[in-house]
Every structure is written in C-alpha cells, then in structure tokens.
C-alpha cells in the first residue's frame, strides 16, 4: 500500500527534484511527514512569496524546473505574485499547494481558497487533483508542461485526503500524451530558406535577441551565427548574457533604458532579426516608429507572439536554437555593408554609458567595480527599479543564465529570494543580489532563511533612501513633487547583524572594492549597504510614448568636446 504523499515524493524524485522551497501548514502535514525522511532537501523560507521566487531563481539559473510548496488558503495566496512573475518571464516552476479535503471543496472550509481559479490567468496550466489515481500522471504532466515549449509555471492543488488516501498499485508512468499540447521546435524549412535570402540581401541588419534565446539554451548558436555573419546584436533585459557584453558586435540593451547605439541601430536598420523576443512596450517605445525602415524576421516558439504587437514580414515558429542552426548552414558569410558596422562603432565610441567621476559614490560605479572584480562572472540577481537598470547597463556579462531579474512583471522583492534559489542551483558560483532599499524591504525577512541554511548570497543594497525609479519619474514628469517615495534611513547592517549576518556600510567610492572583496572572502551571506548619491537617474531614457531614438538625459562628453 502507498498513499498520495508517498506517490508525490516518489514522483518528484523521478523528476530529478533535489530541493523544494516551502512553508508548512495544516493540510500539507501528511506531505511534510513524508518529507521528514525523504532524500529531498526542503528549505524553509520565511514567506511563501520567497518560496516561489526562490524556485524561479533556481529555474533561471539552472534551466531546470524549480519546485515550491505551500499550504492552502493564505499559503497558496502568498504564491500569487510569484506565479505571475514566473508566468510573465516564461520560467518553469511547479507550485504545489495544499487544499481542504475534497469533501469540503467549495464550502468555505477553514483556510480554503480557490487557488486554481485565482491562478488561472497566471499559470501555463493548473490542476486540482480529485482522485489519487490521477496524482502521478498530473505531476508528470505538470513537469512536462512547465519545462517544454514556451516554459512557464504550473500549479498543482492537492486536497488533504488525496495525500492520505491509500492505493494498492502505482505503476510508474513513462509516457505523456497531451493531444492539446504539441510544442513545435523545428522551424519550417521554407521559412528558414526565405529568412536566409532576406538576410543575404540586407545591408544594415541587426539582431534583437531576448529571453527566448536564454530559455532555449541557444547562446552558442547565436554566437556562432554572429561570428559567421558579423551582424551586430542588441539584447532585451531578458536576453542579457546571450552574447558576451565584450563582443565588439554587442550594442548593449535596447529600449527604454537601452544604449543610444542599440536604439539608433534598430531605428536605422533595414533588417531586424528578432529571436525569442516579444516586442514588449518597454523595448519598442512608440510601436509605429520601432524599426521603421526594417523588414522583420521573427523567430519564436509561441505562435501567439507572432504579429501580436508588431506585424512582421517573415515569421518562423520554432525553437531559437534549432532555427539558428538551420540559418547558420544557409548563410554564406559576412552580411551587410562595412559602412554599417563603421557607423555602429562610431555610435559606440560617441555614446558610451558614462559614470560621473566627481569623488561621490555613484551606483553605477558599484556595479562596474563588481563586474571588474568578478571578471564578468558569478550570478547577478536584481531587485526592481533603478538598481536593476544600472546592473543591466553596467555589468559585463560573459554567459547566459548568470543574469536573473524580473522583467515582465517587475516584481519588487523578487531578487533576494531568487538569489537563494540561484545559489541552490549553482552552489559554486558567487551570487550577488543587487537590491534597492525599497525592494529589499519587501522580502527582508529572508535574512532568516539565508542565516539558517548558511546560503552565501551577497547582498549589495544600492541605498538611495528612495523608491528611486518612481522618484525619477516624479522628478522628470511631475515637477519634482516626490509624493510618497522617500524612505527613511534604515540600519541595514544592524538588521543583518541581528540575524547573525555580517555586513558593512559604504559611503565613499574608495570603500567599494574592499567591501565587495570582503563580502566575497566571507563564508556565508554578507550584506553591504552602499549609501549612493540619492538623486542619481537612470539614463539614457526614452520617455513614455516616444520613439526609441528620442532619448533624453545622457551626458555626452564626446559631444561636448566636438561642438
């Protein structure tokens, strides 16, 4: 005889699950009892939101499915923002929630909430298990759905009696058959031929690479394609790391806080090769003026992304890696005019991202220094806001999956717990959480978790004592009326200390490197409170509703010299 909880644990093991991030409660007690001596590691977080963010961070860093567990009602509801975060960024997560016994469903029983109903629009799929005989199949399907095609979160709601019901036999299921779910990986041959023709004929091509390249693990193919064709590349926030930042053909990020070079290149290009991107409004600005002179090739695994925001000339539905391999074979060599590459190099030298050198502590300098110390390595996890944008702009990435950030939902409080997950995925990599003082306080309680499990994440708070990104908009568009965006001074080092975590406050540029080195040299978690220039802004910036070539605010030392 075997019960539901045992089937669940056995199936998780068969899916290769090594770690679960979770938080117990009444209806999941049978499962926790099973976990007590199961060969699965369970990390007890301090808030269920952190459990799902950690599972998400684990998934982004490893490429594998992350798993979290919560009890019914309040526990399940605390997963909601995290599910939405994972859904927006197409991250494979399986969330297990307890539920009241099947006999009580719909009765407003103690700690009942209709979590499958609540999460319908923010999961790739969800299940309410109503019979223990379905349990194994449901779990298998959930992992399959989460981790294939366009990846995403799947929730399984488990009524308590499902966990306790005994069944006699439970043959392992090896085959999954979902007639309504058939992701398409191979691009259409003829479309690939046509794309190769468009590419061959182009004079000013640009590649616009995104999160799809990362989740397809297609970085190698992308780099090979770029190497062969010498086509310049820009990446979205989600695509950072797909190509090393130091590659001379890399233009930096595009979009609202993208580089001038990237945004100009898009605007002037005659062929845009969009790979694993979804033409998000933070990227395109005024959509009618996005890549106005270009023909567009769009490679995406999700047919619903084709033509969703922008009509394209040539769609290829398929996996980025597979389609790129096809294209690499078809293209003959260097593509585009020499003049185009020269123009791009000229923009690059003319409009570099700058860091003021005035003896004050600027946030960008913290990122730059970290990038230098780690030689572009490690795993960089961010919170949301200015801290996130500075990290995106100034870190020099060397590989995919080392950049972890909430892009689509922009969830404050994501970074710190996601950093815990990233460490579990890659225990030998240094993990740095670039935090805002506002965001950090959204899941600050996880200091308890990293202290308990000795998770060596290094927290770098870019402390401007503001909800900086919102303050920036108020400065620029609301006449500096800083309505409810100022945050009082907090002794973050003192808080860390209370949890037994060492830390340091830095107020001057000279202190940055020693502090980061100290953090690296310290075993276990470490916190640095960087007291940065409070009213620093993120530039360049495309104001809302403008075309992406209409950027404001960046200082241009070279312009000044020239004119």
């Amino acid at each position, binding site marked *: 005889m075997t019960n539901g909880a045992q089937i669940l644990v056995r199936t998780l093991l068969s899916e290769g699950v090594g770690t679960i991030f979770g938080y117990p409660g009444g209806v999941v007690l049978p499962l926790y009892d099973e976990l007590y001596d199961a060969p699965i590691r369970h990390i007890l977080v301090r808030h269920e939101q952190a459990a799902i963010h950690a599972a998400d961070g684990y998934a982004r860093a490893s490429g594998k499915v992350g798993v979290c567990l919560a009890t019914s009602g309040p526990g399940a509801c605390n997963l909601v923002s995290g599910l939405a975060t994972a859904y927006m960024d197409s991250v494979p997560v399986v969330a297990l929630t307890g539920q009241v016994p099947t006999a009580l469903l719909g009765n407003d029983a103690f700690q009942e909430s209709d979590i*499958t109903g609540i999460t319908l629009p923010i999961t790739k799929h969800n299940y309410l298990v109503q019979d223990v005989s379905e349990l194994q199949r449901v779990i298998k399907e959930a992992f399959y759905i989460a981790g294939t095609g366009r990846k995403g979160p799947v929730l399984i709601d488990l009524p308590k009696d499902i966990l306790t019901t005994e069944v006699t036999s439970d043959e392992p299921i090896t085959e999954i058959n979902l007639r309504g779910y058939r992701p398409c990986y191979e691009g259409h041959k003829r479309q690939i031929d046509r794309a190769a023709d468009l590419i061959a004929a182009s004079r000013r091509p640009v590649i616009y690479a995104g999160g799809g390249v990362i989740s397809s693990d297609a970085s190698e193919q992308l780099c090979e394609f770029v190497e062969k064709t010498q086509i310049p590349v820009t990446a979205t926030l989600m695509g950072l790391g797909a190509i090393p930042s130091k590659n001379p053909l890399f233009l930096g990020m595009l979009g609202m806080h993208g580089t001038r070079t990237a945004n100009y290149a898009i605007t002037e290009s005659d062929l845009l090769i969009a790979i694993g991107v979804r033409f998000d409004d933070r990227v395109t600005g005024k959509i009618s003026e996005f890549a106005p002179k270009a023909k567009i090739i769009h490679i995406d695994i999700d047919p619903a992304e084709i033509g*969703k925001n922008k009509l394209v000339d040539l769609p290829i539905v398929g996996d980025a890696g597979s389609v790129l391999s096809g294209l690499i074979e078809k293209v003959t060599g260097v593509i585009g005019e020499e003049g185009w590459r020269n123009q791009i190099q000229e923009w690059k030298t003319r409009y570099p991202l700058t860091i003021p050198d005035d003896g004050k502590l600027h946030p960008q300098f913290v990122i730059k220094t970290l990038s230098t110390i780690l030689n572009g390595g490690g795993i960089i996890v961010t919170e949301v806001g200015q801290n996130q944008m500075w990290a995106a702009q100034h870190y020099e990435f060397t590989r995919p999956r080392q950049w972890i950030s909430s892009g689509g939902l922009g969830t404050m409080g994501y970074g710190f717990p996601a950093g815990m997950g990233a460490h579990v995925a890659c225990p030998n990599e240094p993990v740095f959480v670039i935090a805002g003082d506002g965001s950090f306080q959204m899941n600050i309680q996880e200091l308890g978790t990293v202290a308990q499990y000795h998770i060596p994440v290094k927290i770098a708070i870019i402390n401007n004592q503001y909800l900086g990104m919102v303050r920036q908009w108020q400065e620029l568009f609301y006449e500096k009326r800083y309505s409810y965006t100022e945050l009082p001074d907090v002794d973050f080092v003192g808080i860390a200390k209370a949890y037994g975590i060492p830390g340091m406050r830095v107020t001057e540029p000279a202190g940055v490197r020693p502090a980061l080195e100290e953090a690296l040299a310290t075993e276990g978690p470490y916190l640095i409170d960087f007291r940065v220039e409070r009213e620093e802004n993120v530039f360049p910036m495309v104001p809302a509703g403008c075309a992406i070539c209409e950027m404001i605010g960046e200082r241009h030392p070279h312009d000044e010299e020239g004119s």
Partner: protein
Amino acid sequence: MRSHILSVLVENRSGVLSRVSGLFSRRGFNIESLAVGPCEEDDLSRITIVVKGDDAHIEQVKKQLNKLIDVVTVRDITYQNYVERELALIKVQAEPGEPRSGVIQIADLFRAKIIDVGRNSVILEVTGDSEKIDAIENLLYEFGISELVRTGRIALQRCEKSGNGK
C-alpha cells in the same frame, strides 16, 4: 468589427469553460453566445463561441485558445461555408380562442412545434438560424412572451461536395 464563429474542441474536464471564457473577458470581449455540449468523440466537448471583434483581436484570442492545454483544436469558421442553427423555447400567452389560433398560425409559418399547452399559454420550440428566431420572437412579442430561452448558435462547416469542386 464583425461577429466571428469559433468552433473549439476541448477536453471534457472541470474548469475548461472558465479557461476559455477567461481569455475573452480579460480582453474585454463580450461573448454573444456560447454553446457547449458533447461531440463526436466521447471525452471531448465542442464549444461554439460567437464573439464580436476585429480580425486582429480575434486572431490573437484564437492563438491564445490554442495555447490552452485542454483545447485540442480551434476553428474559425466565420469565413467558411457553414450551416448554423439555434434552438429556442418560447412560452407565450395564448388564451383559448383568437389569441391561441394566432399563435398557432405563426408557429405553423415557422415550422415551430408546440410542445406544451396550458390554460392560458403555450410553449413553442423553434429551430433555425438566428435571424429566423429573431423573427418569430418579434411576431410573438405582441401576444406576450412570458419566458424565453435560446441555446446560442451552434455551427458546422459544410460537407465537402462531390465531384471536382465546380
């Protein structure tokens, strides 16, 4: 903006209907009619949805429908050659005598069946395309309709005709 008819084959499971209708409601679409029922395969159901929207918006919803795990196929038959039917049950005032014979006359004209007769009212069953049902509804209006229910439109693409298609 025009009415689109979508014929959607889904797994017969709890929650499917909210998944499907959720895709419309989150985009602010108002579904004109929706009919669900068994179809040619045991464990599948067919949903016929009539919804107004411009072609691009409907195209996006169709693709989103296709992404639902429980949706097996989605067909937009708006621009196909199709047959459609709707069934209505109409309870109408029909006192014995002149009113009742008036109602019977209209029923005959529309080949509606009288399926229940009471002291002062009758229930009619009528099938046809939506225009036909609108028409009989209008004519019966003056007699006094006390209750009315329509199934919503169901539709199938027409059969392929024999020969070489000419």
